[in-house]
């Protein structure tokens, strides 16, 4: 059974939790302070504002909440997750640390400048962690999803960077579309991919 820790909160995470449990994961959900024990998969969904604010109207506190706090939290999750995911033996499958962010990070969106900044920072953090922790058999992934899915039920940005909608005709469901991808990434057979960005938005964002 895959031991999975979900860090974050909200409707998106709840749906992901249900989906992973349906796939047989032993799921624990909580905040970064609750990360103890061992795990096969740690997933962090950063808490970002679910509505737009122009940068010129952001207060310093708004800026911190939307940008610096999620980035700090991602660093804290990485530090806390490492000892849970590190493997002593090369015979063991790797432990995977995954972040889920919206494609807003890739293309940028008016009203979500601070969120996009935080999420791009997380993508580089995942790459740096992958490079440092490969020998510990800790691997990382950033799963990038449609904002329509990530900000479900809130006033998030719409998918950017494409003149057309998703090739598969929908933006994706956390439980039925994204949880299976995480399950796949947690499988030892996916062990050779690390530090990468995997776009899972039904084929809207197809940039190089």
């Amino acid at each position: 059974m895959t031991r999975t820790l979900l860090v974050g909160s909200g409707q998106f995470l709840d749906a992901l939790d249900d989906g992973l449990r349906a796939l047989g994961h032993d799921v624990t959900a909580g905040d970064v302070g609750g990360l103890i024990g061992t795990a096969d998969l740690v997933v962090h969904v950063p808490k970002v504002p679910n509505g737009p604010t122009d940068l010129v109207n952001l207060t310093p506190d708004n800026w911190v909440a939307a940008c610096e706090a999620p980035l700090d939290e991602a660093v804290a999750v990485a530090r806390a997750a490492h000892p849970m995911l590190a493997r002593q033996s090369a015979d063991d499958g790797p432990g995977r640390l995954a972040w889920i962010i919206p494609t807003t990070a890739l293309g940028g969106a008016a009203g979500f400048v601070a969120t996009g900044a935080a999420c791009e920072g997380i993508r580089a953090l995942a790459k740096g962690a992958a490079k440092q922790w490969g020998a510990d058999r800790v691997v990382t992934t950033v799963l990038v999803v449609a904002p329509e899915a990530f900000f479900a039920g809130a006033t998030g940005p719409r998918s950017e960077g494409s003149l057309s909608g998703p090739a598969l005709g929908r933006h994706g469901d956390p439980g039925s579309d994204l949880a299976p991808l995480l399950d796949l990434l947690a499988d030892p057979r996916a062990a050779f991919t690390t530090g990468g960005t995997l776009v899972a938005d039904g084929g809207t964002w197809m940039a190089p």
Partner: protein
Amino acid sequence: MSNPTTTGEGLLAGRVALVTGGASGIGLGMATAMAQHGAAVVLACRRTETGEPAAEALRADGHDANCIRCDVTRPGEVHSAVAKALERHGRLDCLVHNAVAGQTGGALVDRPGTGWRLLVASSLRASFECAQAAHGALRETGGSLVLLTSAAGMEGSEAMPLYGAAKAAQRGLAKGLADEWGPDGIRVNCVAPLARTPALAGAIEADPSLGERLEARTPLGRIGDPAEDIGPVAVFLASDLSRHVTGQTVSVDGGGFRGL
């Protein structure tokens, strides 16, 4: 933009550029290149004891340059620097946020110390403050905001993973702001340079093989010069030559990073 200027040495004639961290290294290289193309340049720097001589040297070469004290980790000084530039010149066409401080190398499992906070304050928060301070002035001129990032922000860094994260966040900021400020006629771009700066020279002195390794991964075979190699890209991004370019990251590193 009715009468774009896209040719000649006067590409930036009549224009004003403010460069944070402009007293030395890449900041001074960019400021020098922009001054050589006609811009009045404001060197906003924490240490006026190096900024004043740098401005004086530019003036001695016939350029319009002055130095303003600005510690970018202090929001009040960022806003004050922009206000003083406007008071002196009456306009602002380009703000380059180049300053950065903080040491963030080492193991990611270690608790981030004051180096991380200083890095975030000087690079990321200061980008936010620079943008807020300059928005009105740049809207008036249809100007350009330039943020300095790094290849580490695109490919990640084993040696400095937190540095990579902060620099990537600046790229994210630029992309979103390009979308947000496009309707105001303001362009927002990033430059990812590799140049022989005093900081890099110090690093190479401490680790002599670093220079060789950097050059070995660079197709053009050498580390860039701040004024001769990085400066022209600042001129491009400050001028009408880049009037239709926004939200981009320009790598100016001899081809070392080619991943985009």
